[in-house]
């Protein structure tokens, strides 16, 4: 079978330090979301999934420390040589160290410290990568696009191994922005639910390690993927959902598989009115209305540049255990098109699973994992 093998992964979140720890919590229905009171972040209390300890030691920022912890665990569980010239490090983030702008006076030094290429360089030096890191910052599809980019680069033969890591942290900058959009839910977010009222932010780092080496050919693979743009509006999703559907259909076509062969869809499911409605329409338009769907935002909140990576890691673990994690927060369907939102733990043979995402700037992405 075509595709690039997934050989290791990690989720470093408020729920746990490894994919296994995280998956155990997801199976138990434990969420990382709680009511946070922190006047440095917001004058009012807000729901969020945040780390409860400080990260202010060492030469690395919190953003960099959670990435390093996530990558270290994923690297410990495989035999990839980071110093190999066939190994590339790909970083996904929307805002990186932007929290520094909340706390410090802007000058030339801070400019360098905020730049994503500075973080990528420091992390690459920490691990000893010899290739220049590749950085993707493409709103909320960053994580899915980073995985797809890795797959494309490995298939071209340029590299054999890719360490894809993504993270974002909760900052006043980002929280105030979503608050200004009236997009933050006053309760833990409720994806696809009739009473959903917006998103919950979260912070997490995630890592996937991919390889084109044939010795891993029995592993779960990234088989295909596609990106599209709505060409409609910067912050509101497409009214027709045709463009996300187009990315899904191209992904299936490139893998030569039919809609009925898709066993599960890991949705973006931010729990904003517009996103979930648009996604439901796109799923329906792609003739996948009976396929089980979940959103993990009720466990982690929206983790921005990490979301596509951690949600893929959970999907891959689901495929290993043949278990679908329910959509935390979902009770009653609240979208206009029929979609099969999972609300309880399901055991099901999972061979072909889709991960989808959409973001500001009108971008959409889909990626297919196969067993």
């Amino acid at each position: 079978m075509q595709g690039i093998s997934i050989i290791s992964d990690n989720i470093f979140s408020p729920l746990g330090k490894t994919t296994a720890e995280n998956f155990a919590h997801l199976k138990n229905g434990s969420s990382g979301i709680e009511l946070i009171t922190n006047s440095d972040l917001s004058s009012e209390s807000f729901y969020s999934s945040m780390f409860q300890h400080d990260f202010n030691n060492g030469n690395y920022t919190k953003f960099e420390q959670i990435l390093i912890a996530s990558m270290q665990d994923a690297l410990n569980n495989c035999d990839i040589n980071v110093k190999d010239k066939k190994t590339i490090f790909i970083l996904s983030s929307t805002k990186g160290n932007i929290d520094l702008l909340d706390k410090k006076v802007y000058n030339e030094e801070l400019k360098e410290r905020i730049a994503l290429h500075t973080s990528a360089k420091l992390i690459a030096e920490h691990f000893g990568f010899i290739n220049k890191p590749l950085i993707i910052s493409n709103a909320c599809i960053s994580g899915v696009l980073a995985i797809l980019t890795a797959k494309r680069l490995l298939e071209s033969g340029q590299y054999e191994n890719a360490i894809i890591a993504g993270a974002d942290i909760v900052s006043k900058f980002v929280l105030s922005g979503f608050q200004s959009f009236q997009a933050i839910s006053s309760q833990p977010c409720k994806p696809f639910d009739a009473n959903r009222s917006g998103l919950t932010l979260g912070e997490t780092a995630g890592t996937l390690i991919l390889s084109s080496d044939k010795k891993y050919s029995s592993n779960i693979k990234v088989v295909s993927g596609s990106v599209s743009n709505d060409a409609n509006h910067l912050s509101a999703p497409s009214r027709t959902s045709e463009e996300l559907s187009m990315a899904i259909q191209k992904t299936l076509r490139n893998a030569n598989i039919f809609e009925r062969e898709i066993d599960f869809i890991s949705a973006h499911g931010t729990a904003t009115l517009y996103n979930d409605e648009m996604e439901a329409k796109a799923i329906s338009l792609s003739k996948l209305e009976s396929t089980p769907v979940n959103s993990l935002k009720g466990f982690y909140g929206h983790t921005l540049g990490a979301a596509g990576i951690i949600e893929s890691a959970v999907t891959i673990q689901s495929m290993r255990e043949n278990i679908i994690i329910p959509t935390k927060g979902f009770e009653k369907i609240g979208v206009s098109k029929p979609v099969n939102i999972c609300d309880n733990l399901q055991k099901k043979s999972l061979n072909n699973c889709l991960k989808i995402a959409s973001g500001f700037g009108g971008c959409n992405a889909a990626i297919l994992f196969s067993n």
Partner: protein
Amino acid sequence: MNKNFITAYCIAENNIVYKNGLELYATEGILSENFFLSAYNHFNLNYPKFYKMDNLSKLGWLASEILLKDENLHEHYASEDIGIVLSNANASLDTDLNYSETIKDIPSPAVFVYTLPNIVIGEISIRNGFKGENAFFISEKFDAALLEQYVNILFSSNACQSCICGWTETLEDNYKCVLFLVEKEKRNLNLEFIKDNLEAIFNANAEG
């Protein structure tokens, strides 16, 4: 791998706009924001959305208008086959600084939406109805090798048939935008889409 070609390119820097090596507009001694507006007026661009854009989007959008003028991409390609792959060093920091100022008073959603570098891709897509592949890469310096590699993969895997790629950066009063139109057929210019040509065009005005 099949060869691909640069069929047009546009540079905007130092108060000058070039297309395919020809100087189309120049002015002197004005700040970047005023330059974007004076170029907008000079080229008779009529697009009210321009006024609400941040500087990164104004610059990228202006350069894309000049790059694509007379190219009639829609006659040659389906909208889903036209990709946009851009890059810069400081993402949306220019607007991040502006947004950060508004937090002290009333956070502005109209400014916040521009605090992502790929918004300029969204603006170009909305203007032209382009619905294909997108990517925004961050690199400390212009990375011609990455653009060559990634865009060639998009072509060879049929993920797109035509692509606008390049660099667009604004920070305080510094700016530079270099956009390339890449296609499978040679058309007017005889410029292969290879890293050396990208670098030569990117650095064409470095001494000037």
